[in-house]
């Protein structure tokens, strides 16, 4: 059993999409990729009792029902394949108690694999993830919040967890044993390292997960600086809007406006990108250095160069001024995305309404004073009441009425 636990933004989506697309081919090679979704996020959220969406506020999201986890466990336990692959990028950061339960419930020989990448180059994409969830801090403000002091920022605990690389590895090594933990470090110069590692671990032919043509990959591209600023400026309104639930935020905005903007346009090469200022890149690298040393001492298997995690990636000397204009195309796609998703949502509701109206039972027929019409109306109006209940109910009423009459008679 291979459990891919993250970390986020390390090519997990690409890998998961590939595994989902090749579900059948994997089976033929003795590997079960359970479920029907592209990854196992529902199960992961459910077992950790974690809200899927906003964790606080009046419009916070719901915790997915535990059945998502139970279903996954049942499928894994029933599997007759030699190997099973389960993947979600939050398993790495779940609490030790949850991780222990995961291993206990799965009841298999669990091998854990981490995918990691250069930490300083992760900053801008992590901030963008937060943007997609509705934060309103700009990039410099956010960097200050997460890197400015040594204390873990309350609001961005997830960031702290995700960058505490050695803590996550140590936690899992304690639970499954260091000999059952692999850390794969992504390498820009060797992009197939990720899939090759998984192919080896699962003992499937080279290229099975590698050469999948991935649609939707564009939706996962980075935002440009103007795009990010557009999203940020809209977040303030949407998070403060009392009618905007997580469901609507996600359905209309995140999967509507933002996804459409990212997937339906290709930014010009000269459109400003988001790069961290030098100080932040260095701070992230310095933190990573400590983790690299700790991981090296844990005795886990490492694929790739661990030192790459702590290299100082691309940066700019000073933060760029906030963009005050966006490409017309970006604005168009953001608007259109909302249109499409609204039309889809509302269209689906309208269809359900139409179906409900069509299926509604016909009304009780009108009566015209004849016994026949009254009897017919009575038959329709009481459809669904068992005859026995009908007789007894009449009997009961007669009894009540009689009792009342008797009592009144006695008093008189």
């Amino acid at each position, binding site marked *: 059993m291979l459990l891919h636990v993250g970390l986020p933004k390390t090519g997990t989506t690409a890998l998961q999409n590939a595994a989902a697309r090749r579900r059948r081919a994997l089976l033929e090679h003795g590997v079960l990729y359970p479920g029907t979704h592209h990854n196992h996020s529902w199960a992961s959220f459910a077992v950790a009792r974690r809200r899927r969406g906003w964790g606080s506020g009046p419009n916070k999201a719901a915790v997915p029902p535990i059945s998502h986890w139970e279903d996954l466990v049942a499928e894994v336990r029933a599997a007759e394949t030699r190997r099973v692959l389960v993947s979600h990028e939050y398993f790495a950061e779940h609490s030790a108690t949850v991780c222990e339960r995961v291993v206990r419930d799965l009841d298999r020989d669990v091998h854990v694999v981490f995918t990691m990448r250069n930490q300083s180059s992760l900053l801008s994409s992590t901030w963008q993830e937060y943007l997609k969830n509705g934060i309103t801090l700009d990039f410099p403000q956010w960097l200050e919040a997460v890197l400015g002091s040594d204390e873990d920022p309350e609001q961005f605990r997830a960031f702290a967890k995700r960058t505490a690389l050695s803590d996550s590895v140590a936690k899992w090594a304690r639970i499954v044993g260091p000999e059952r933990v692999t850390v794969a470090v992504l390498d820009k110069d060797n992009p197939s390292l990720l899939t090759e590692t998984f192919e080896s671990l699962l003992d499937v032919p080279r290229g099975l997960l590698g050469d999948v043509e991935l649609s939707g990959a564009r939706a996962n591209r980075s935002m440009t600086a103007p795009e990010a600023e557009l999203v940020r400026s809209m977040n303030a309104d949407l998070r403060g809007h009392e009618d905007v639930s997580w469901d609507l935020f996600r359905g209309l905005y995140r999967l509507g406006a933002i996804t459409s903007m990212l997937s339906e346009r290709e930014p010009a090469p000269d459109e400003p990108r988001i790069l961290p200022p030098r100080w932040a890149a260095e701070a992230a690298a310095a933190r990573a250095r400590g983790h690299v040393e700790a991981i090296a001492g844990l005795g886990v298997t490492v694929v790739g160069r661990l030192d790459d995690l702590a290299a100082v990636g691309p940066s700019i000397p000073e933060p760029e001024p906030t963009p005050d*204009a966006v490409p017309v195309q970006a604005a168009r796609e953001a608007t259109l995305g909302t249109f499409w998703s609204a039309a889809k949502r509302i269209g689906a*509701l309208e269809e359900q309404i139409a179906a409900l109206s069509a299926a509604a039972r016909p009304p009780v027929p009108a009566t015209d004073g004849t016994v026949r019409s009254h009897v017919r109306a009575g038959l329709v109006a009481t459809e669904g*009441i068992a005859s026995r209940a009908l007789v007894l109910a009449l009997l009961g009423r007669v009894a009540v009425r009689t009792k009342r009459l008797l009592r009144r008679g006695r008093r008189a």
Partner: protein
Amino acid sequence: MSPVAPIPAGGVLLHVGMPKSGTTAIQRAASQLRTELLEHGVRYPGDRYNHSLASFAVAERPRKATLATGHKKTDESHWTGLVAEVRAETERRVLISHEFFAEHPAEVCRRVVAELDREVHVVFTMRNQASLLASTWQQYLKSGATWTFDEWLDLVLGDRTGANHSFDRRTDLSGVVDKWGGIVGLENVTVVVLDRAEPDRLTDTFEDLLDLPRSLLGAVDLSGDHANRSFVASEIELLRELNLALRGSTKLSWSQFRELYRGGGIFRLLAREPGTDEATIATPQWAVDEMTARARAHVERLAASGVRVVGDLEALARPVRGVPQTPPAPTQVPLLAARALALGILEGAVELDAAAEARHRAALERATTARSVRPVPAPRGPWRTQVRTSTRATQDVPARVLAQALLGRTALRLRSLVDRSPRTKD
């Protein structure tokens, strides 16, 4: 401005247009001052800011946008309701205003006058025609058109025959005055020419015609009325791009489209105050010249007709400054404009969604309670309990209905027994 004689007491002042020529200002002022107007002897009927629904209804003209599927028929009652309110007003003067009355076919105009059954005085407001081009094009884009300014100018002003575009009706100044003059009599028509140099002329004239104190209408502060501002060049390019993409594929009803697009997106977009340095829409010189030449012909015909004119007809055909060429469409839009448009549509979508959810809940409710009775299974347990549960489960059903049902069921059972019993042949 020298005073204009008021219309007769009890008469109707029918403000028929032209579009984009001060109509919104008059309508906003009159609807805000509805109560004050009543005190001053003037009724502005209805409760909306203008009489568009009545105007659409009497002309049997559907409301639609290029982008929405289907269109909405305007209910006749909007017109008959207006007529009833006007007829019930026996003393005061009445003001009715909508910019499409000018262009309705003559038979519709005749019906309007006949059904109002009052002395009708028609007032036109008109403005410089060449300067109207940019805002008229924008108006079409608001309804979903996709022409560039150049394409549109070529369509309405270039060499063509029989295009019969609504633009023709809206700029046929002498034609519409002739038409209305023929119906109510030219002596009952006033043309007010707007002039930047004399901004009060519009409200002053209406005050005089309605015998109101000067500056009653003019005192209304319309500065917050952003809904009618012009778009800047980048905004209009964004809308045009949006229209191109939405064309023919919105699958939304007219009312949903309107709520999302006009009520949501465009309303919020226009609430933004553009910077003074933002490029506005410039009209190419050839179009200015062509439009001015057309206006000149109308000015001459209007002058010759002898209709009462307030202001200087010449202002309609005064040349304005054009540009040699339309500048290329902007590729960037202010972030705040993009944000406003996208947010407006999102908010519209959130509202539409809430409405659809509510209707869905109601439909669910109806589907489960379509008949008054919920299913009741045959009771179990001790006899007394059975009686009690049955009585309780059917407490909403009148005893009479229970009895009728029992009668019916017994009859059915008997009949089926009879049908099933073997018939012996003799």
